[in-house]
C-alpha cells in the first residue's frame, strides 16, 4: 500500500515536471465546424502594368558556368491574360470553418541552379517542409522568423533537412551565399491558395458569411476585398494590381 502511494507521488511529480517544462501555447481563435454546404471563391490576380517586361531579380552566378546561369523572377506575369503567379490569397478574418489537414507528404523546397523552387509556399501551421539542395555546391538555408524557430544550416549536394512551422507567420527563406530567397507563408486556417501561372486561385468549403479576402505578393504588395459567401454558391473575385 505504501509502495503504491510512493509510486503515485512519484508519477504526480513527474507529470507536473513535464507540464512545467513544456507549456502548451494556445493558438489564436479558429474553431473547427462541420461545413456541409459551404460556398467557394475563385478568381484571378492580374497586373495591368507592362506585362511584357517583368522586373528581374538577376542571379549573381559568378561561379556557375554560363549556360547554367538562371534568372529568378520576382514577378511572373502571364502574357496571355496578365495573370500574376505566386500571389498568396487568403481569408484574413475567418473564425470558424473546415478542419485543416496537415499533409503527410511534406512539401518540398528545392534549390536548383541557385534558385529556390517553388518561390512561394503557403502551408497550414504544423506542416513540415523538406528543404533540399539539388546543386553540386554548397548553399545555406536561412530563415528570419520570430514565432517559428529560425534556423541557418549549411546544405551540401543532395542534403535534405525537415523543418516544422507551427505558428502563422510570413517567413523569408534565403541563401546568403548566392543572395537568393523564397517565401513560406504559414496560416492558422486552411482557407488560402497560391496563384498558378495564369493567376488563378480557388478557395472552397467556406461557411456562409462576410469575409475579408486578402492577396499578398512580395513585389506588388497587399490588397483586400470584402466578399459575401452564400451556401453552395461560387463567388468570382478579380484582384487587379495597377
Amino acid at each position, binding site marked *: 500500500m505504501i509502495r503504491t502511494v510512493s509510486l503515485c507521488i512519484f508519477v504526480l511529480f513527474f507529470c507536473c*515536471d513535464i507540464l512545467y*517544462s513544456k507549456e502548451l501555447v494556445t493558438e489564436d481563435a479558429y474553431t473547427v465546424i462541420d461545413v456541409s454546404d459551404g460556398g467557394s471563391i475563385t478568381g484571378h490576380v492580374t497586373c495591368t502594368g507592362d506585362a511584357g517586361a517583368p522586373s528581374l531579380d538577376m542571379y549573381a552566378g559568378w561561379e556557375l558556368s554560363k549556360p547554367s546561369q538562371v534568372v529568378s523572377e520576382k514577378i511572373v506575369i502571364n502574357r496571355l491574360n496578365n495573370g500574376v503567379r505566386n500571389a498568396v490569397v487568403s481569408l484574413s478574418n475567418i473564425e470558424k470553418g473546415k478542419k485543416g489537414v496537415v499533409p503527410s507528404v511534406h512539401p518540398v523546397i528545392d534549390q536548383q541552379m541557385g534558385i529556390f523552387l517553388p518561390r512561394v509556399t503557403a502551408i497550414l501551421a504544423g506542416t513540415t517542409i523538406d528543404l533540399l539542395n539539388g546543386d553540386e555546391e554548397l548553399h545555406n538555408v*536561412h530563415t*528570419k522568423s520570430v514565432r517559428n*524557430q529560425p*534556423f*541557418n*544550416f549549411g546544405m551540401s549536394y543532395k542534403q535534405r533537412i525537415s523543418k516544422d512551422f507551427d505558428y502563422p507567420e510570413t517567413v523569408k527563406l534565403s541563401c*546568403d*551565399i548566392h543572395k537568393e530567397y523564397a517565401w513560406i507563408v504559414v496560416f492558422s486556417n486552411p482557407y488560402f491558395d497560391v496563384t498558378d501561372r495564369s493567376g488563378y486561385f480557388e478557395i472552397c468549403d467556406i461557411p456562409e458569411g462576410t469575409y475579408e479576402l486578402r492577396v499578398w505578393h512580395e513585389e506588388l504588395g497587399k490588397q483586400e476585398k470584402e466578399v459575401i459567401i452564400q451556401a453552395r454558391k461560387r463567388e468570382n473575385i478579380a484582384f487587379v494590381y495597377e
Partner: protein
Amino acid sequence: MKPKGLFYKAGFLSAAVFSCAVLSVGMRPTTASAIEIPKEVTEEGKNVYKKYCSACHGEEGAGDGPVSRSMIPKPRNFTRGAYKFRTTPSGSLPTDEDIYKTISYGVPNSTMIPWDILTEEQRASVVPVLKSFSEAFEFREPDAPVAIGLPLRPTERTILEGKKIYEEKLECWKCHGVEGRGDGPSAGEQEDDFGFPIKPFDFTTGKFKGGNSPSDVYLRFTTGLNGTPMPSFAKELSDEERWYLTHYVMSLVQSEECSKE
C-alpha cells in the same frame, strides 16, 4: 506494527520524495551554479540597462541608441531574439547563461566591452530585461545546449583535414577568403537579419568574437551565429570534422609581430 516495518515504509516514502526532488532539479533549465540569474524583470535590472546599455542598444532594445549611428558592427537589436553567441542549436534562443557570458566577456573586434566593471548581480539583473524586449521568448523555449564532448588534440593531420573542409567541402573561402582574412568573393555583399552590412570574420586577427578557446570556436560551427549569414554545420559535418575545422581556422591566426610586417 513492527518497528522494522515502519522503518521500511518511511524508507520507501523518503526514497520517492528524494527521487522526485532530483528529477525536478534535473528537468529545470540549468542555471549558473555560481550566480543566480533572476527570472523576472527587476527595478535594478531596468536601471542598469538604462544607465549602461541603452546608449547603444536603445531604450526599447531595438539597437538604435543615440551612439549606435556611428558604430559598425551595429549594436544588437534584441527585438527578434536573435543572439549570436550561444551554446544552443541553430535558431534557438540562448540560455540565460549565454547572455550573461556575452555581457561579462564582451565581444572582441566590436564596441561591446567586457562589463566586468559591474557586479555579478548587476550583470545578471540585465538578462531578463534583454529577454523582455522580444516576443520570441513568449513563444519559444531555448533548446538544450549542444554537447561538446571530448576535444581532439590538434596535430598536423587534423589541421590538414580541416584545410580540405575549408577549401573543398564547405568552401568557407567564398566568404572568409583563401587566407582567412574575411575577403572572399561573396564577402562584400553579406548583410545580417536587420539589413546592415556585415563582414565575414578575419581569422588572422585571432580575436574570436565568441571566445578564444577551441571549444568556443567549435561551438560557432555547431550552433551558427543567429541573425547573421553564418550557418550551423551541425548537420553537415561530423563531430570530428568540426574539430578539424576548428584546428585549421585557429592555425590561420597570425601573431602580432607577423601582422605588423
